[in-house]
């Protein structure tokens, strides 16, 4: 059975959530194999001048009944700027789904889903999946300030949400690793996506407290399917492709100094 497919996507809506983030909702033109939370797609943007390769984006949400896929994209360069410029009816091409996603096979009762900035993207679909599995979980989001917190209302509909901002504009002031929820949560598993320094700090917390922890990495990619060997991460098994063996890794597999 196919794990992934190439399909055109028709843009249904494209809405700026902040000065630097956009939510794009698109409809697949052909059947898409099952999508797991934490997987990504490779988007080809024909209108994007000056780029050549596809761009990998985390899948924010996917409705398998309608083939509707949502992306939460941070504007960082030419590719994401072109994503923000998409209009209703535009057609882009995607390879999807790709990567392994979060491993939800291991037993846990009460998970903490930690994200920073646009690392919130895969946490929406992960939360929906955990809810349908009947698992307890809490969101913990970190950002510099309020404008970097994306779709908070949508997340709050799924689960209780704790927040840390560096400027104190929402939630507690400080870093996610300083949030008081860590002291009272009784969590037995952590899923994390965000800037590397944040993920390392969360991994450190997990190690110190003996909690299993999965992190979602973001490396520059060319192919997205394990052929070009460009997006490697150094692991206990040597260099492995983030696109194929990841993007989600158990922290015990990584060679992070934590």
């Amino acid at each position, binding site marked *: 059975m*196919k*794990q*992934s*497919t*190439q399909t055109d996507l028709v843009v249904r809506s494209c809405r700026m959530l902040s000065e630097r983030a956009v939510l794009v909702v698109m409809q697949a033109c052909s059947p898409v194999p099952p999508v797991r939370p934490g997987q990504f797609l490779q988007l*080809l943007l024909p209108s994007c001048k*000056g*780029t*050549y*390769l*596809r761009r990998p984006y985390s899948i924010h949400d996917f409705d398998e009944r309608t083939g509707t896929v949502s992306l939460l994209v941070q504007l960082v360069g030419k590719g994401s700027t072109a994503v923000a410029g998409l209009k209703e009816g535009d057609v882009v091409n995607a*390879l999807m789904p790709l990567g392994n996603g979060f491993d939800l096979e291991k037993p846990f009762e009460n998970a903490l889903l930690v994200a920073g900035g646009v690392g919130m993207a895969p946490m929406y679909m992960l939360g929906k999946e955990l809810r349908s599995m009947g698992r307890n979980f809490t969101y913990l989001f970190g950002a510099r300030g309020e404008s970097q917190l994306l779709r908070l209302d949508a997340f709050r509909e799924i689960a209780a949400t704790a927040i840390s901002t560096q400027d104190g504009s929402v939630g507690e002031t400080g870093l996610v690793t300083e949030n008081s929820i860590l002291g009272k949560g009784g969590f037995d598993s952590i899923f994390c996506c965000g800037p590397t320094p944040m993920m390392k700090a969360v991994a450190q917390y997990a190690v110190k407290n003996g909690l299993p922890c999965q992190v979602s990495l973001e*490396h*520059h*990619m*060319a*192919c*997205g*399917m*394990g*052929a*070009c*060997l*460009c*997006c*490697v*991460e*150094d692991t206990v098994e*040597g*260099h492995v492709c983030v696109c194929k063996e990841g993007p989600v890794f158990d922290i015990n597999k990584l060679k992070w100094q934590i």
Partner: protein
Amino acid sequence: MADLKTRIGSLELENPVLTASGTFGYGLEYQDYMDITKLGGIIVKGTTLMPRQGNPYPRMAEVHMGMLNAVGLQNKGVDYFVNSIYPAIRNIDTNMIVNVSGSSIADYVETASRINELEDIPAIELNISCPNVKQGGMAFGVNPASAAQVVEAVRKAYSKTLIVKLSPNVTDITEIARAVEGAGADSVSLINTLLGMAINAETRRPVLSTVTGGMSGPAVKPIALRMVWQTAKAVRIPVIGLGGIQCVTDAIEFLLAGARAIEIGTANFVDPAISEKIAAGIGEWLDSHGCRSVDEIVGALEC
């Protein structure tokens, strides 16, 4: 329908489209997106005698109409290939060709002789042109004498079709082509990547961990075409052309310049089904231009 068959040494290809080493994994990676048996052949990832970890991340930089890579021949070594990969790919119904690399002549010879024993591998592509490794690789391919030396040694150990992949990072590629032809190569493939670099002005640092890397993609096509044209005139063995092929017309241009087959490389990353589309498209192009076979257009450039 035009006859798409072509020959490289004793290797018979159903059509002239091969996939370039390092851009198509072991073929299996692309099965979700296309029928890989519709290709003339698949040249699998570069294989060395011992396992190689390759270079540190970052290994890739996008450039205008192309990319730089500095993978550095990451692979699990020939033993792993023979024991774990070969059984999974040997029954794929197309020519499975192994790209062989090394850091010494003895390495090349040992790896080639191990592959020689594999019944379902009809050819190797000898990589004397990798720009991303410190020892060996391109060092062999930039000098006619050392290129001939490694090819001569491998020729004695390898009895099937021997393709030698040439580096464009030389003053006169025809000199190297003639040298490896004289040393017993059945074919030459060109071009490997062009040495380049990318800089991040904000950080004042190189983008690649190795500072320099190999450039590929549509931006290199005019250089590749020129070198294929020059080389096809300079040698009698068949030339395989590659470098920036993106579409059917690009492939036809290489055939006109004298290539008997072509390889699709970086374009596989943009459209994973492109090689199958180009294979089918060459047939349609020949039909619509009143050509009965690929042979009719190989080297048919008028100038």
